[in-house]
């Protein structure tokens, strides 16, 4: 069995795992991150929802039920985690605007408003509350899953035009926008359009790593506010966020093991010592002094529901189950009140799992019990805040142990 030793192993490559990993690497710890696949963050709009229940996200958090995991984190740390995220993303070339004092609106592909806290700058110019300004949407011939008609039906003054880019998926369009020759040709077409509306919007396909620059360039050229509208997956803003977090983690010294689903663990007494995977050929194991679990809930692969119960997939930690199976689901499919949203891992204030012997496992992100991220609109925000708390406890634990 090949063995490698780290200070910390992070399990899960989502917003929580990559953030906790970057923090610990920055503090000088030797950090490895293992992941089965890519995170659900790639499917997201890339916006950081902190708490969308209230105009002010922090007041929203204060009104959450007592058992919500946000209540384990001091408000100061929640704010710091958002500020640090903004400065890290700025360094990674993906600036975010907004602050923890006020939520903002993002125009959705259905023409409704999505409420979120930190917004990629490419979406920043979207009309805020009570702004009924006219929008001109530029979409692409054959682009699946984006229909300006939905937006026109909700905002009467909206017009749209269609550009034939020769390709018709979000991935291929974003790729084309990274090519200089394509962008120049597109700009030449755009300059010939007469646009009377006040703002210009695009489905979020304006490049991958250059999105911010592309939006700025178009805005300067047309002398109008320009913004992107997030699409359903494949979602480019989600992938840009994932890429930027990954870059930040690596720059701080972390290493990533892909195709590494944890299949086994080694432990002594109250200490978890290693995780292993059945990689091609032979089991591969990684030793560490501490572990951070950020595997997400059901879709992310952290939890599995069976007919009878709900299991945590890596360390077999005790799972908080909201009640008997009849209470797991609401009759209305689109309800935000499915009981199963409360399932997850309960922790103490140090983010250590309750009712389990392990003193060197720290939990963060949407796997936490009672998070109800859909209902509360708190996915990535909770991931950032709890990643800070888990990294803080983990680093105190390690300094104490060493």
């Amino acid at each position: 069995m090949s063995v490698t030793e780290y200070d910390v192993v992070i399990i899960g490559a989502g917003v929580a795992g990559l953030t906790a990993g970057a923090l610990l690497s920055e503090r000088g710890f030797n950090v490895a991150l293992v992941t089965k696949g890519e995170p659900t963050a790639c499917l997201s709009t890339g916006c950081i929802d902190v708490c969308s229940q209230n105009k002010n996200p922090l007041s929203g958090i204060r009104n959450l039920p007592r058992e919500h995991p946000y209540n384990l984190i001091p408000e100061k740390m929640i704010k710091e985690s958002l500020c640090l995220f903004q400065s890290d993303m700025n360094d990674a070339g993906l600036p975010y605007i907004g602050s923890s004092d006020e939520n903002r609106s993002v125009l959705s592909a259905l023409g409704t408003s999505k409420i979120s806290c930190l917004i990629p700058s490419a979406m920043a110019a979207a009309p805020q509350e009570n702004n009924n300004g006219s929008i001109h949407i530029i979409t692409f011939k054959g682009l699946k899953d984006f229909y300006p008609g939905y937006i026109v039906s909700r905002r009467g003054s909206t017009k749209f035009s269609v550009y034939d880019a020769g390709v018709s998926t979000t991935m291929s369009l974003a790729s084309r926008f990274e090519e200089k020759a394509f962008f120049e040709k597109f700009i030449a077409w755009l300059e010939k359009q007469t646009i009377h509306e006040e703002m210009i919007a695009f489905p979020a396909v304006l490049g991958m790593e250059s999105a911010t620059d592309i939006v700025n360039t178009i805005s300067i050229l047309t002398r109008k506010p320009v913004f992107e509208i997030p699409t359903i997956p494949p979602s480019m803003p989600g992938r840009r966020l994932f890429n930027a977090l990954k870059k930040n983690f690596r720059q701080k010294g972390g290493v990533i093991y892909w195709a590494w689903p944890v299949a086994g663990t080694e432990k002594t007494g109250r200490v978890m010592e290693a995780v292993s995977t059945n990689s091609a050929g032979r089991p591969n194991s990684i030793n560490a002094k501490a572990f951070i679990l950020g595997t997400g809930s059901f879709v992310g692969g952290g939890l599995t529901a069976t007919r009878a119960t709900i299991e945590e997939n890596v360390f077999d930690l005790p799972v908080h189950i909201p009640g008997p199976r009849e209470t797991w689901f609401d009759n209305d499919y689109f309800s935000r009140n499915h009981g199963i949203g409360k399932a997850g891992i309960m922790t103490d204030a140090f983010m250590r799992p309750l009712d389990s012997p392990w003193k060197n496992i720290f939990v963060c992100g949407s796997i936490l019990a009672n998070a109800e991220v859909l209902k509360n609109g708190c996915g990535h925000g909770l991931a950032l805040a709890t990643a800070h708390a888990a990294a803080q406890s983990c680093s105190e634990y390690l300094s104490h142990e060493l």
Partner: protein
Amino acid sequence: MNYEHCIRCTICVENCPVFRVNPDFPGPKQAGPDAQRFRSEREKAQDDWVLLCSQCKRCEMACPCGVEPAQIILKAQQRYGNEHPQTPAHLLFANNYYLSALGSLTAPIANWAASTRLGKMIFRNMGIATYLPFPKFRFRTMRNEKKMLNKGRKKVAFFHGCFINFYRPDIGRKIIRLLVSMNVDVVLPPQWCCGLPALGNGNLSLARHFARKNAESLSNYIDAGYDIVYTCTSCGLCLLHDYPGILEIPQGKKIAENSYDLHEYIINLMNEEYVKPQFRTVNRKIAYHIPCHLRAMGIGYPAQKLMAQIPGVELEVLDESCCGLSGSYGFKKENASTAIQIGNRAVSLIRRTKMENIVSDCGSCRMQLGGLSGMPAFDPAEILCEAVLPATSPENFHTDS
């Protein structure tokens, strides 16, 4: 096959390099799990677009549900290959091993012929793209190396793979010197093409033929106490993943359990304190392009760990892009434009790093990225040799780069 586990989340599609640039390919979700529901044993395969998949396996890396789109497509490719006549290019690349063996025996003539206008015209007429210069055959392949026995406690049977053997035996010799300098015995077991090119060109029976021969040879060495070390990450993935998997080789499991990536092996030697290499300063700024098949192996990036220990090395890891060549994939005329577009994207990300050298474990990645960018491209073992081996070699090895 787990195609029913697909929740249609499209993360695989986001990761497909071909889908991004070639509208004719429906993407891993549709070509894999979606189409699988409609594939019937009773009807002749009609899905010729499965041949557009380059088998980079990035979709499998991304899937959160354990569906293996590339594996589903690979099986569909084998079936299509079995039920339809093979094009000359597919036949040629499946038999790449024999072709290269001939090329090496007649290296000066073969290289000259391949570089002439007539040669290129013949290539193009056979469906072979000529945007990259065809790699140069080497007269003196690895076969001619003698055994390097120092009575070390560790014994390695080196699976060099076709690329090293026929085109860059100099790198193969450096790797042998590197291992010998770490007090490891190295032998070259009788070996053939790993079988991956045949598999990639839809020729399952030929792939199995190669695999059986290798398995018999390697298995004997394992029984005699040797560890198998490979350097080509695609050969490695084939040994570890396809021998016990789709190729159903009886000794597959044993081979997979005893085969190591070169750098993984060196790290193990260091972990066991068998060696304590002293790294000299190497002043190089390196963009380390991770081959898709190394990423798929689930062993992390061992060469990154080693290079990071070399003083003077400045390293940036790039694993977001496929190089596009994918072995023989990009050499087929119908795939050339796809391969060039994918490759240019990888090159633009490399240029953003402002590094001066490309390093990659895979020979075909180096060929593609070096060719498209004009930057020097090295094997990580070459960087390691610069840091470990004395500048002038005691063994008087002939290097021909």
